[in-house]
């Protein structure tokens, strides 16, 4: 029965692979990509591969890892909806910059990516003359880009909106990479801790045997050198908890960062001022809106419906309500924590001088740079943590090896 089960599951895997090969969509014309037969072949192919792979994998004690590998392969192949959305966004931006018809370009991008089936409805609506705003709303693109385009539909200045959003992204890319890279490196090193501990446990077993040969036990050797460290400090359980907590913390931290930036918690916390990132994006949008002659309520209406960061909508809504009640816009923004008192005074003064758009943009750039400097600090902290980890690991290994050797020497003496 066992052999039959294995053979059936392996057969299922092979069938899945054949179906997936038959349903390939890359470099295939749009009409063939959109045929339902191909879509069903694909669904059945993945189902066979997952089910068969999981059960065959279990025989190899690797069923779960096979599923993980499949997920990673799908992510790496760039077929995720967010990546598909990004590609279409890049296409739309290029089309607007070079004044080319958007629908045919989007259609070509979808055909090229081999994901026509996923965007079936979108393509149909594009052919029916869907407006650009609706197209963008349906895509999974970054929040700042979404805000910029929503504003551009009111001002009609798509070129400027795309250019500003692009400028913001380019300015942040390097520092974001530095931050993420440092955190990922720390995460990688942390994974070395249990691997090192595992090897060290095996080596210390041999040391224990050597000490035993000399009539010593590890405890005596340790106390002889007055290590004086409480036993719980070296408890594997405690170390495992710390390792898990820190690793988990880093992963959650990076995920939070990619969700909305370092200041996402500040944005959610109603009693603090909003993050520098949110502030810079709001000021940038305000600058563009004011330059195009929109009123504050109109700009805030766009911001409330398309907030540039995840946790900022509540503050924007409160500001808009205050403005509708007749409050001063700068006061309303200060009260909801979007502006600092100094920012408020500066902007009120430049409004009187008639230099408001320029001041808003300058202030937006200033906060963007401050945010970028703060990220660099986190990268430095990550670097210090990496060095500390290295030094601690080296010290422990050195002390334990040297301690054993010295214990043997003392015994011989």
């Amino acid at each position, binding site marked *: 029965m066992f052999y039959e089960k294995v053979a059936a599951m392996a057969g299922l895997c092979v069938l899945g692979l054949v179906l997936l090969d038959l349903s390939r969509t890359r470099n295939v014309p749009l009409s063939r990509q959109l045929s339902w037969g191909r879509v069903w072949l694909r669904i059945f192919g993945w189902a066979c591969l997952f089910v068969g792979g999981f059960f065959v994998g279990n025989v190899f004690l690797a069923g779960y890892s096979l599923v993980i590998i499949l997920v990673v392969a799908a992510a790496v192949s760039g077929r995720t909806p967010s990546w598909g959305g990004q590609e279409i966004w890049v296409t739309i931006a290029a089309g607007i910059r070079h004044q080319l018809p958007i629908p045919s370009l989007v259609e070509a991008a979808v055909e090229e990516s081999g994901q026509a089936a996923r965007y079936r409805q979108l393509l149909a609506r594009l052919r029916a003359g869907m407006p650009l705003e609706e197209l963008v709303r349906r895509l999974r693109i970054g929040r700042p880009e979404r805000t910029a385009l929503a504003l551009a539909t009111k001002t009609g200045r798509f070129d400027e909106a795309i250019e500003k959003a692009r400028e913001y992204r380019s300015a942040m890319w390097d520092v974001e990479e530095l931050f993420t890279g440092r955190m990922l490196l720390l995460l990688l090193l942390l994974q070395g801790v249990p691997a090192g501990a595992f090897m060290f446990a095996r080596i210390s077993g041999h040391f224990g045997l050597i000490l035993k040969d000399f009539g010593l036990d590890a405890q005596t050797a340790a106390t002889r050198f007055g290590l004086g460290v409480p036993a719980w400090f070296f408890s594997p359980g405690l170390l495992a908890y710390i390792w898990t907590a820190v690793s988990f913390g880093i*992963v959650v931290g990076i995920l939070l960062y990619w969700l909305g930036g370092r200041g996402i918690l500040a944005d959610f916390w109603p009693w603090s001022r909003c993050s520098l990132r949110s502030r810079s994006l709001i000021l940038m949008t305000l600058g563009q809106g004011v330059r195009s002659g929109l009123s504050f309520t109109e700009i805030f209406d766009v911001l409330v419906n398309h907030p540039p960061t995840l946790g900022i909508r509540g503050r924007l809504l409160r500001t808009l309500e205050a403005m509708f009640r007749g409050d001063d816009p700068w006061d309303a923004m200060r009260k909801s924590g979007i502006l600092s008192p100094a920012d408020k005074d500066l902007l009120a003064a430049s409004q009187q001088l008639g230099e408001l758009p320029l001041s808003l943009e300058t202030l937006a750039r200033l906060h963007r740079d401050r945010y970028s400097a703060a990220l660099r600090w986190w990268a430095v902290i990550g670097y210090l943590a990496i060095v500390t980890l290295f030094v601690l690991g080296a010290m422990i290994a050195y002390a334990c090896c040297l301690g054993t050797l010295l214990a043997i020497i003392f015994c011989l003496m």
Partner: protein
Amino acid sequence: MAVVMGNQPLDFEPGANWDVISDALGRTVEANLPLPTTLRALAADLDDRRTASALKRIAARIERGESLDAIFSKEKSTKSRPVGQLLHAASLTPQPSETLNRFVTIMEDYTSNLRNLRTALSYPFLCLTLALFGAFVISAGWLLPNARDIVAMEEELSLTQPVRLRIELMWAGNLVSLLIGILVWGIGLLIILGPVRMSRCSLTYQLPMLGRYYAYLNLSLFAKVMAHLTQSGVELSKALEAVAGLVSYPRLRRALKEAAAKAAESATFDEIVRTDQRFPATLRTFVTQSGSKLSLSARFLAAADFFEDRARALWHAAPVLLMVFAILGLIMLWMTYAIPLMMWIYWIQLLSGLAG
């Protein structure tokens, strides 16, 4: 080193830095300086002995009356071929000196973008090295001795056949995982060591994500050079042939060579590209937009800008991709620790007679 002065083409010394050579040639030609003297002067300033030697050889051959184009067209080395192709492409235009310098800059951007891959790949490569090392240590130091104990016990208990088979399958699975890991590691190492060299291999373009990065850079290079050539009024078939020598994407190169042959038979670029699926759909749309008021060279420039943006977007998506690797690495490590535990549980099951 003496310069060979025979009639046969001279082989340049392997290991010469062709980026430096093409840069030197481009700048010298654009500045209208005497080539042999300037190249010798530059060679004297260089620390890299092989590159200096290649520059001296080029200077010697120019003094013998050979043109730059002729020197590089006879050259067999794959590394120096792009320089020859650049010279050939530039020689087609009315202002070869200016164009050459522009092409050299385009080529430099292309190669530096390819070399950027080293930074992007370093983290996953380190992760994979650690995971492979850990898997090897745990397999050889922990799993193998335990498996021997289980087999010994199984013989003692005289259990049924599938138990032994299951253990063998487990080992086969472990070995296959390690081999796949080593294969991926090897591909990564090849790309890290020679990202530019790997661009000539068809298989590189089949790799997930990386393949598209390579393809976008090649398409951008193609569109940029074509924009300059069409703007300079170079005949379409000659321009396509020249660009075919510059791009390293084999599929695109083949398509361009065929397109050049068709263009020589008086077919327009729109007609050639519209039906050829080897040209990406977006390129076809950019170049053959019927409603667009842009000239052909402007359309090529727009396409170049688009593909460059796509490559940049792909490059900046790398951190998200790395997150997947990081989480996978974590889970895999947990799995590695879980396997011995599972083996212990299995052993207990065996002892208590639950398995079999």
